[in-house]
């Protein structure tokens, strides 16, 4: 019986709460591709060697081996691209939208999904200016939003900032390796 009770406690503590949408995708797209009126989705199906290369860079493989980028144009002028990246944490997944300018720098980062449990941590980190730390980063740069927040937010908000850092690092690596090289200026 003692074993049963311990099992119940462990399972309850580890139980992952459902994901909630913090920012709807259309709103994230409008914020990260401002002024765009036409959009293109690009699915990059990675070969094994390319998937391995990405894994070596950021310790991550995309879902089903597919990276998806969305680009936007205003009339015929490219306004940039964005990708949605999921980060699995012990508390469940979060989703981070990373938007890029046509010059290949980060225009903005939006945390679009989190679990019910993590939502207040995300809101605290974002409220403390987390996403501003990523602006203008370029592929090859290392996101350090969590380090900047330490001492200014609670431990859990700082923890979740580290998870957002991972999402941005993945977005930067994916964009720099598999999008920007084909699309200078897109």
């Amino acid at each position, binding site marked *: 019986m003692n074993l049963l009770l311990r099992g119940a406690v462990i399972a309850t503590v580890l139980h992952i709460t*459902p994901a909630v949408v913090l920012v709807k*995708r259309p709103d994230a797209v409008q914020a990260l591709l401002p002024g765009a009126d036409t959009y293109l989705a*690009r*699915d*990059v199906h990675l070969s094994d060697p390319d998937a391995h290369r990405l894994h070596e860079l950021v310790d991550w493989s995309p*879902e089903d081996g597919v990276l998806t980028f969305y680009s936007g144009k205003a009339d015929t002028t490219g306004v940039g691209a964005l990708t949605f990246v999921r980060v699995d944490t012990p508390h469940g*997944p979060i989703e981070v939208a990373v938007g890029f300018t046509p010059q290949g720098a980060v225009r903005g980062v939006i945390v679009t999904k989190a679990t019910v449990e993590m939502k207040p941590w995300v809101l605290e980190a974002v409220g403390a200016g987390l996403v501003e730390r990523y602006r203008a980063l370029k592929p090859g740069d290392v996101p350090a939003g969590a380090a900047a927040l330490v001492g200014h937010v609670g431990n859990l908000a700082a923890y979740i900032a580290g998870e957002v850092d991972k999402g941005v690092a993945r977005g930067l690596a994916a964009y720099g390796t598999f999008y920007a090289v084909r699309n200078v200026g897109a």
Partner: protein
Amino acid sequence: MLYDLGRADLRIKWLVTCLLATLGVSYVFGALMVSLYAGFTPERVAATYAGREMSMPMPPETTMVMEHAMSMADFAKPEVHEVDTNLLIQDTHVHVPMYGVIAAALSLVVAGLSLSQGWALALITLLFSAPWLDFAGMWLTKFVSARFAAVTLIGGWAMGVGYLAVTALAIHQMWLRTRGVDR
């Protein structure tokens, strides 16, 4: 029999009733959550666990790019909740222990019911095999065929049937059956 819920102390009957009521509430909200994130049809369960229809069964020899136009309406379409391998590993790790604890708790109730040994063993087997079917269906849907989504549905319904059977029998034997029973 030493352990007989029909003749048990009032406090034990009340404990079991509260346990069944609490599990019942969690099952109702579990069903609501399934309807929100996966659905009750084989097609929706397959979409949740098998992944994107356009996904290639094997990685291509060289990286391939496919493009298609998107409208803002496409971004606004309800997203299919997809569970990839990493998330399924996490879900299995988190849920299976709790399902085991629930099946064990309901089996302890079964052990206190006046049932033939065969029926009791069948109910206990149902209580434990239902979550196994549920998760086996998810893994088979992901790695073998989308047709195994039906196994997950069978497992889910079997969990509900097992709970209802135990609850109905326990409530009947503890509170409604009067002949030869001290309340």
